């Protein structure tokens, strides 16, 4: 283990480490803690310049007023409407593509794989003009569906990379044995490989959920009105209305950040497994 375990160190080092941990965490999360405290401050605190002291009262009503006086509820709903179908769509497509690229040998295989990888690395802003035009032409501009279709397509790149590497690491004897038995290719996929892909599906689901929930760029490019706007775009427009009402901005931010945070803490193991794919092997 590197560095040497603190448990083997001298007593002062051990104590120093135990003190350093919470202190460094506090510094690291200072901006976040500040916002969380601000989100429960009464407006009068801010007016009186009490920005950093103990809040004079716990105003959970800030959260209430975020939901009551703004379309925050609708924004959150829209985010779910965009995120959940995207997760399902991208994972379904990439199970298929990943399987094809991992188990069959054919000439174009590696080049198709690179197409997915390269496309996935592109700074996606460069797709803006054509994708917006395409969405307009399909009559899907300013709709949840238009946003979902693009997200599914784009995320398929990353998911394919992930799935393909995952399936490639599975023992190929399983598939060979099924082929010898005369099982059709689709049944091999469905009954042999798919059940083994559960951990990959779980890891990708959390990751894609977070990516899509946090997307802002495409929300502003493909959606205009409140009715289809996800929470990231919504909070920006609210930010314009709430000039300097930091207690409301903070409460809104906390609300917008919550779903992926909950998802992360519930499925931490899968999340990190997904994110660190490839970080260990050569």
């Amino acid at each position, binding site marked *: 283990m590197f560095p040497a375990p603190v448990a083997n160190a001298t007593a002062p080092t051990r104590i120093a480490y135990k003190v350093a941990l919470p202190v460094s965490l506090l510094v690291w999360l200072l901006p976040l803690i500040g916002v969380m405290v601000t989100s429960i401050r009464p407006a009068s605190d801010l007016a009186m310049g009490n920005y950093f002291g103990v809040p004079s009262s716990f105003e959970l009503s800030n959260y209430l007023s975020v939901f009551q006086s703004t379309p925050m509820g609708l924004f959150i709903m829209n985010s779910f409407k965009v995120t959940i179908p995207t997760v399902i769509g991208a994972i379904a497509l990439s199970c298929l593509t990943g399987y094809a690229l991992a188990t069959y040998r054919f000439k174009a295989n590696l080049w198709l794989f690179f197409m997915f990888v390269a496309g996935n690395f592109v700074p996606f802003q460069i797709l803006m003009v054509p994708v917006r035009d395409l969405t307009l032409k399909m009559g899907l501009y300013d709709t949840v569906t238009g946003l979902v279709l693009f997200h599914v397509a*784009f995320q398929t790149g990353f998911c394919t990379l992930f799935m393909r590497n995952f399936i490639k690491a599975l023992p190929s004897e399983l598939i060979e044995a099924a082929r010898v038995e005369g099982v*059709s290719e689709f049944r091999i996929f469905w009954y042999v490989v798919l059940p083994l892909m559960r951990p990959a599906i779980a890891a990708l689901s959390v990751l894609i959920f977070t990516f899509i929930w946090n997307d*802002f760029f495409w929300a502003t*490019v493909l959606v205009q009105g409140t009715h289809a706007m996800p929470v990231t775009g919504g909070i920006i427009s609210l930010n314009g209305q709430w000039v300097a009402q930091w207690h409301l901005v903070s409460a809104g931010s906390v609300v917008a950040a919550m779903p992926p945070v909950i998802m992360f803490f519930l499925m931490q193991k899968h999340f990190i497994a997904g994110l660190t794919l490839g970080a260990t092997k050569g």
Partner: protein
Amino acid sequence: MSQQVAASASPQSGGTFSSGEEVRTRTSKWIANQRRLAPWLFLMPGALMFLVYVIAPIAQSITISFYDWDGIGTKAFIGIENYIELWDDEAFYTSLYNNLLWLVLYMLAVPAGLLIAIFLNQTVTGIRIYKSLFFFPFVISQIVVGLIFSWFYAPNFGLFTKLLEFLGFEGIAILADERFVTYGIIAAGLWPQIAYCMILYLTGLNNVSPDQIEAARLDGAKGWKMLWYVILPQLRPATFIAVVVTIIGALRSFDLVSIMTSGGPYGSSRVLSYYMYEQALSEYGFRMGYGASIAVVLFAIMMVFITLFIVRMLKDERGSY
């Protein structure tokens, strides 16, 4: 029999057959061909979506960059005029410079992430919670990160201003000052990016061979020497991914600029992606062609890195075949 069932369960055999004879020949043909056909059927939906929404738009962006187009009316071919205009466009150079600044400074996330990972790679009680909480900034949206840092930098009462005053300096309105604004935004971007690199390195450190460390310890290696000669070589895959995701992140920077400054003051914090967005979609323009030409420049920068990445992957894949 089981093969017929299998074939009918597969997506190919959708139609109804007229006679039993035909069923047999078609089925056996299908079996003979399915190993060859199957990959294409599996690939089709995903690859089609990806072609339509990602690959084709790259080509279209390049084409559109040679046109003058407001997004609605007819396109007028103007050759390389958009690029000639870019050549003399000061705002473009500001954006390009800022993008390079992002690239260089964003790289700090890699060593910083490694440092925190080394700090946290212990087995004391509660360390798992610490690791998750250190990772926290990566999970929240960049929009929220931007709002948090706008508040952190706020003049008069922002935590950063207070900190400066506490240290005896004069408070600076970071986001309103042309000299510092891009640095301020990059610092906000580093926060989640460091967390990302940290988690990559934590996983890497977890898989470092204990035998090699022990052997090196017996040889008297420790501290920096151990890190440099024994640990870092084993962390190479983690470093590679950390560098790749950091480059991509730097070139994709948009959200933070958009929420924190909208490119201001006086366009001094624009990056290429934001300038493109402004030219193509904001009230200033609807100049799709000009926006597309900025996109092409951004793409060209990224292409350098994509090529390097693919070359390396090609090496790996050739090795494993």
